[in-house]
């Protein structure tokens, strides 16, 4: 019984859904049964077009995410290891941290066009903040004894950064990646819902405007599964690389 506990609430929710769907109180447009959602899900998975749309969304997500990861780690390292850079850049980041970068999207559309580039640019900007701020804290908290030892043994500045500072802040880098990855996916989906002709976000709003609720929910399931799989993959990668510190798939 105790082993079943984690599943109770999930099962209860699914059962409530199915009962509500089959009770006939609401139109199937509002509560399509799990069976119909499953059927639509199968239709989506079994056709090449579905995979193509998922790939478009993933391509945008990873494009912006990867760029932000590289730039954010570089910036965070720079700020963490140089007092001057920290003083210079910190106000810029903390001042604009709480501002929703999504508001820039219409301007980005004018600058970068309606295609993928404006979306990737926005994902980059939105992910850059958590990446930079968390790696900055990581680079600051590197044990100075490690750096002194490296310098004492004649390591150059560059070598100290690559061989000592970077591995020491790796747990922070992964914490930052873990915050940034769902953000990247969210922004990709939002921007596709606002203005796009392809991608999963577009499919959601298209299914809604054609009142295909079951199809819309099937795509919601696909997006949710993507979010979950990406997160678990990231944690698996982290446990591989940061083998001296284990982490379960729960939130940090």
């Amino acid at each position, binding site marked *: 019984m105790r082993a079943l506990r984690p599943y109770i609430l999930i099962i209860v929710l699914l059962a409530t859904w199915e009962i509500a769907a089959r009770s006939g109180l609401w139109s199937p447009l509002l509560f399509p049964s799990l069976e119909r959602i499953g059927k639509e899900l199968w239709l989506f998975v079994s056709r090449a077009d579905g995979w193509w749309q998922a790939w478009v969304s993933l391509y945008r997500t990873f494009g912006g995410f990867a760029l932000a990861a590289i730039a954010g780690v570089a910036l965070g390292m720079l700020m963490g290891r140089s007092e001057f850079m920290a003083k210079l850049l910190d106000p810029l980041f903390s001042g604009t941290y709480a501002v929703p970068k999504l508001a*820039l999207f219409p301007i980005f559309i004018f600058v970068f066009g309606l295609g993928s580039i404006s979306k990737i640019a926005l994902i980059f900007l939105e992910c850059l903040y958590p990446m930079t701020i968390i790696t900055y804290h990581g680079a600051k908290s590197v044990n100075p004894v490690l750096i002194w030892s490296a310098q004492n043994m004649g390591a150059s500045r560059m070598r100290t950064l690559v061989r000592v500072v970077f591995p020491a802040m790796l747990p922070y880098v992964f914490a930052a990646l873990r915050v940034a990855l769902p953000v990247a996916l969210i922004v990709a989906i939002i921007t596709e819902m606002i203005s796009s002709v392809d991608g999963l976000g577009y499919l959601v709003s298209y299914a809604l405007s054609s009142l295909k609720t079951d199809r819309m929910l099937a795509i919601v399931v696909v997006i949710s599964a993507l979010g979950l799989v990406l997160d678990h993959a990231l944690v698996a990668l982290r446990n591989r690389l940061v083998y001296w510190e284990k982490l379960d798939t729960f939130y940090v």
Partner: protein
Amino acid sequence: MKTTLVRLSAVIAVLAVWQLLALRGLPDFVLSPVDIVKHFVAALGTQELYRDAAASLMRALPGFAIGTVLGIVLGLAAGIARSFDEILSPLVFLTYPVPKIVMLPVFMLWFGIGDVSKVLIIALACFYPAFINAYYGARATHRILVWSARNMGASEAEIFRRVVLPGALPQIFAGMRVALALSFIVMFAAEMINARSGLGHLIREAEMSARFDLMYVALLAIAILGYAGDRLLRFLRAYFLPWEESHT
């Protein structure tokens, strides 16, 4: 004075370069900082900006309040009660990496296209950071502190109020800060996708009619609101947690 000058130098430099580039001529969709401020001041004299800002806040703030209160209460409960934890937490952690905004169309079907669906989607998005931070804050309470309090004759309620809660507060504030930023993002997204008022609607309308000045006014308004909310939260944090040094 001198340190503030150094700290602000990067911001000033960016604005100065931007203004100089604007003097040399920029495309239509990039306004110079001085022009943006001019348009913003002009818009402050009209009714529309206040109406849209108020409409946006009436969505973001109730959503933020509902989501964080539920998240903190349930998170603390799951953090201290084992059986509750085992039932609730798996669902929360399973759905955590799911982008909550995809539920907006579903909510629009269930609760209509009005404000209710927007408030609820904001509440849903704010729930997660509030829950997770309160949960880990409560779980991180030092055993020895609890034992000492119990040893000194404190009741369970007293232990919660005097030991667990103060210990979890820094984490709770961290969660609220994330939730506040998130509430603005989701509000904006919801308004851009579907709304008849609000700053997100204003920016979308400005975009459609190529009114770049209005776009920047809405942008600046949302930036100021987001910044002010964050400052307010940090001020509250410093007030309630005088022993904690605040960091960004």
